[in-house]
């Protein structure tokens, strides 16, 4: 691929992001603006922003790569990523918005009336955020290497710098517009090339290299346990993603929070058709892309490969721009929510503290990214979902729906889930997930129930610690807001 294409694509995305960020700066003034855009964002904007933030490197590059590698088994990834939002809608969206909290630690503290719970939740949120940023940076490294030939480190460093710049200058208000823009950019960047490719394939009668059902790498099918465990991770992990949840506070009320989620579901469903198409087309017409060991780059390489020429270059530029939009939007969303948590808990809040915290929350995962090797993107993000599902999700779900939750139960539950799932992830990182038995490689199916069980049992034992504020908090979570006016 022409290196200038990749560089031009990245430069224009960064400039567009920065411009919208600076433009948004003029409307954001107070600390509240910095955190959650003053809760004045309309459902369509907000839903686009949620979609923009959620569709990460794993969705943009990883899903198609995995489909190319393992066929229909990989289709469970986009299903899980989307259905996670259904679970969010069913169990979390409206009550969380009604809780009136800015962040997940705010929520657990208010619900359980306990500072220690807040500290542990903050720790988990920061861990989840950092773990989630790392694959984005790996994606950036891969994209830079494949499309420009520059050394890999350029990608992560560039993404981190742009993110710090936009977050520090504009806060959440501008981030909302940036994210909304980036959803539509990502959709266009995948849709236009694939339509071109399809038209070309229909017109040219290019011979199919392999039938779609054939597995181009000969890798063993993943099996029932792994599919189920993956679904558990994705369905319950979405509930606890810090950068997703913070978006719900920007809805004016619980009803709008639900409407927003419904729109998000629609946006995600439309989006995931395209990575699926890329994966399927690549399986049929370019299965050798999988053998090169860089299946995650299939979205980047396919348009150039099948279209070629100047048209191919232009389409490639579009896809590369979309990929960077994915890295930038997810990373900045995570950095914003992490900075919110870190600045409130460690630096005492305020705009200055937020800016400092933003730099810290972006630089630490950059170090992680340099120290670790890139796995398959969809797989490593799937593990982050498993971690979230084992730590934040039980506390959130039980906190919203179960009166018996206590602070001790919440803390032990989070620590147990974190230790079990984190341990499995460390083993996977050391020995490689292929060398491990499935229950370690894909731990969610047992770590999530374990975390729930520990939380419930310990809460039962310590039931004298049920907070006195329980009735008031539960009422606030579930009672619909009073309509304005008479």
């Amino acid at each position, binding site marked *: 691929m022409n290196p200038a294409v990749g560089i031009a694509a990245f430069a224009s995305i960064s400039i567009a992001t920065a411009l919208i960020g600076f433009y948004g700066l003029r409307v954001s003034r107070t600390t509240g603006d910095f955190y959650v855009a003053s809760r004045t964002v309309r459902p369509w904007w907000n839903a686009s922003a949620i979609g923009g933030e959620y569709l990460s490197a794993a969705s943009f590059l990883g899903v198609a790569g995995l489909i190319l590698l393992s066929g*229909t088994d990989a*289709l*469970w990834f986009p*299903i899980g990523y*989307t*259905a996670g939002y*259904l*679970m969010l*809608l*069913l*169990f979390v969206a*409206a009550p969380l918005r009604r809780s009136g909290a800015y962040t997940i630690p705010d929520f657990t503290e208010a619900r359980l009336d306990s500072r220690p719970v807040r500290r542990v939740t903050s720790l988990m949120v920061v861990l989840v955020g950092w773990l989630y940023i790392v694959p984005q940076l790996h994606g950036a490294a891969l994209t830079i290497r494949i499309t420009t030939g520059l050394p890999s480190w350029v990608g992560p460093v560039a993404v981190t710098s742009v993110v710090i710049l936009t977050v520090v200058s504009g806060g959440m208000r501008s981030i909302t517009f940036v994210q909304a823009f980036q959803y539509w950019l990502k959709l266009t960047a995948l849709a236009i090339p694939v339509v071109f490719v399809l038209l070309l394939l229909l017109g040219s009668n290019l011979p199919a290299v392999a039938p*779609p*059902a054939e597995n181009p790498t000969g890798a063993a099918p993943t099996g029932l346990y792994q599919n189920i465990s993956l*679904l558990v991770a994705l369905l319950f992990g979405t509930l606890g993603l810090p950068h997703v949840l913070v978006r719900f506070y920007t809805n004016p009320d619980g*009803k709008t929070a*639900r*409407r927003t*989620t*419904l729109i998000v*579901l*629609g946006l995600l*469903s439309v989006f*995931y*058709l395209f990575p*699926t198409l890329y994966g*399927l087309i690549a399986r049929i017409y370019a299965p050798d892309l999988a053998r090169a060991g860089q299946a995650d780059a299939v979205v980047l390489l396919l348009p150039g490969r099948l279209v070629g020429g100047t048209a191919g270059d232009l389409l490639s530029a579009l896809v590369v721009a979309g990929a960077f939009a994915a890295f930038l939007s997810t990373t900045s969303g995570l950095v914003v929510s992490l900075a919110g948590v870190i600045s409130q808990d460690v630096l005492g809040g305020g705009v200055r503290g937020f800016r400092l915290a933003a730099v810290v929350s972006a630089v630490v995962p950059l170090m992680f990214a340099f120290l670790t090797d890139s796995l398959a993107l969809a797989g490593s993000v799937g593990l982050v979902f498993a971690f979230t599902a084992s730590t934040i999700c039980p506390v959130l779900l039980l906190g919203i*729906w179960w009166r018996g939750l206590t602070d001790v139960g919440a803390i032990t539950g989070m620590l147990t889930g974190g230790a079990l799932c984190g341990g499995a992830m460390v083993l996977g990182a050391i020995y490689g997930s292929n060398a491990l038995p499935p229950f370690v490689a894909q731990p969610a199916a047992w770590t999530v129930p374990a975390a729930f069980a520990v939380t419930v049992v310990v809460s039962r034992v310590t039931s004298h610690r049920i907070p006195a504020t329980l*009735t*008031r908090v*539960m*009422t606030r979570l*579930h*009672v*619909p807001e*009073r*309509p304005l006016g008479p």
Partner: protein
Amino acid sequence: MTRVRVTRPQAGASTPAQRPETAEESEVGQLFVRSLIRSQLRLALVVAGGFLLLLVALPFLVAAVPGLDEISIAGIPFAWLLLGAGIYPLIALSAWLFIRTAARNEERYRDLAGER
């Protein structure tokens, strides 16, 4: 679990008008709140359960019905169509049903709590 039926107070035996805040903290108010929470949770569980059941059933359906996995439309095998596109409308439908019913539960609560 015992189900408590909560009904609107009879017109004649009306209690004096209360401010909504105090109404929610009263014993009767809490009864309404608890019943709202229960109905929302039941709704969420039913929708989630139904969706998951379908989700799990679909792959088995493909495997169990002979010839289903040999069907292909425009060169794309049935399993791909089902998992790659067919499940998304199902998700949207579940979400839509949930939102409608959840809003109705809240309306009913508002009526009961006399908030309008």
